[in-house]
């Protein structure tokens, strides 16, 4: 079987526009930096302004284009404000990466010990937020006949790990959101991908598994580079890709 690399990095990202959520740290931050290095105009979204400021300043210092928008993707009222502002700043959006997500309260608990409100809050951030944002972006992509939407998934979407209930349910649902969107948008030129980045050395991972051997975990920058390559590849819409297999 051909590897994705052999299939070619045929998509030039230079000059395109992207929005990345959860961009203040971890994989989101690494993705924003990797995309900016590839010549993409990046809109970085996260709840807190401070860390975004450093990110944007860093990208600009290297000659890239980046803007920060402080917003919570789980906030319904924020969605059109984020997308409208992003489009005003960098033009029509070519790539949306739904990376922001929450584990819910840590330490992680058994489902029977999980408060209903906590499950709902996890779904709001990890599933409903990306869904709303896609509603505000995929239409402009479909009209122009091009665009890529990426859902950052997890192996917890596929495997049933005890204590990862709320997160796992939200990621499994997000994978299916990805597949159904892909089916509905077939033929429009809008590609929808779910990408499992694998285990990375991030604050989120440390919160979930505090005693993990950090040396065994992938660096977010390396994973981000792989994800950018996946986006540039011609993998078809609806695909679920794993960084560990790339």
């Amino acid at each position, binding site marked *: 079987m051909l590897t994705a690399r052999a299939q070619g990095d045929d998509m030039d990202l230079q000059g395109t526009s992207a929005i990345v959520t959860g961009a203040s740290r971890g994989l989101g931050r690494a993705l924003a930096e990797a995309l900016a290095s590839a010549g993409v105009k990046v809109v970085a979204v996260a709840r807190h302004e401070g860390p975004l400021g450093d990110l944007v300043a860093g990208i600009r210092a290297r000659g890239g284009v980046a803007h920060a928008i402080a917003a919570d993707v789980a906030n319904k009222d924020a*969605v*059109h404000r984020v997308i*409208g502002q992003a489009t005003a700043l960098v033009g029509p959006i070519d790539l949306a990466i739904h990376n922001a997500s929450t584990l819910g309260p840590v330490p992680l608990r058994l489902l029977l010990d999980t408060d209903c409100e906590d499950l709902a809050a996890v779904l709001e951030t990890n599933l409903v937020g990306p869904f709303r944002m896609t509603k505000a972006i995929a239409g402009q992509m*479909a009209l122009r006949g091009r665009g890529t939407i990426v859902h950052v998934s997890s192996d917890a979407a596929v495997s049933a790990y005890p204590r990862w209930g709320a997160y796992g349910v939200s990621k499994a649902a997000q994978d299916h959101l990805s597949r159904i969107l892909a089916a509905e948008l077939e033929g429009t030129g809008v590609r929808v991908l779910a990408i499992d980045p694998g285990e990375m050395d991030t604050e989120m991972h440390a919160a979930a598994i505090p005693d993990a051997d950090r040396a065994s975990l992938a660096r977010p920058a390396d994973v981000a580079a792989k994800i950018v390559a996946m986006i540039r590849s011609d993998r078809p819409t609806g695909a679920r890709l794993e960084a560990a297999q790339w």
Partner: protein
Amino acid sequence: MTGDAWVAREEVRLLVVDPRAREVEVARFAELPRFLGAGDVVVVNDAATIPGVLRGSTSCGAFVEARVIETEPLRAILFGPGDHTIRTEDRAPPPRVFAGDRLHFPGLIVRIANVSPISPRLVELTIDGGATVAELWRAIYRAGAPIQYAHRREPLPMWAVQTAYATRPWAAEMPSAGRPLTWEILLALRRRGAEVVALTHAAGPSATGDAALDAALPLPERYEIPEATARAVNAAHRRGGRVIAIGTTVVRALEANATAAPTASTKFGPTDRVLVEIECQAQEGLSPQVKVDLLNARGDVLRTLDAPALTDGRLRMTLPVASLANSTYVLRIEAAAGEQTAQQWVAFRIAR
């Protein structure tokens, strides 16, 4: 709260007039694909709606509401105290402002660049204190609300004023003819072989509360027609297909482009002055009277310019373009001498 509390978008009624069959039918938007097919081109305005209503104050502390109607250049319509629950025509006039005055809004300070001669409510603004365009957008999206009118009391949420394909925020008010177009409808149109293409037109406000200003609407509105859209429209015309403009903003953009674009390839920047020189000869003994009007691309007279006297049968005048928005304009020069009249048009485009 649901997205649209009244009628589902695709349930909006659609009046279908078939001039060839001399038939009129009342349908629903959901049925639009039934009336269209291969060879037809549907053109939508993909402008997103700016949440352009900002509430702030003058430097003296007087309340002022600014409705941002265009961002390049930055123009706004000002109102005094009150909110959207008061009918626009009953709204208090804004505090008197002059060029150079500052207006303070949450996260944004602007300076009045000029006040329109048409109405003291219409002002051109510049961002103050070295702030960037990005900061202007941030302030608008943090604090702004969509323009709305008194028939609905509850504040309009952002999603209620966006079409299903809203892209760049250029519109002061929603290009609302496209509001009923769901993706169910748009994809069905494409399945039937109709093309769905877009242009972007900065739809302006529908009311300003000032009779003189209302009479001048629509103000010059910028638009952009992508190459692919122009090609699709021209091809449809050539093969006798139908071009369905979703709303008057699309009609305005297409018509302006069709009539003025071929001669309007000259671009001017904001600091340029357009020099107009026209030869104007009349029969001996008669002295021509010359009148020069500035028209928008639709042919509406924006203002009558002071035409200087002829010198050796030539008229020379300069037109500062700093106060003109990005758009296509036409100068109409009319000369009359006795029974004789002559008319000439010059089209030009402002692009910054």
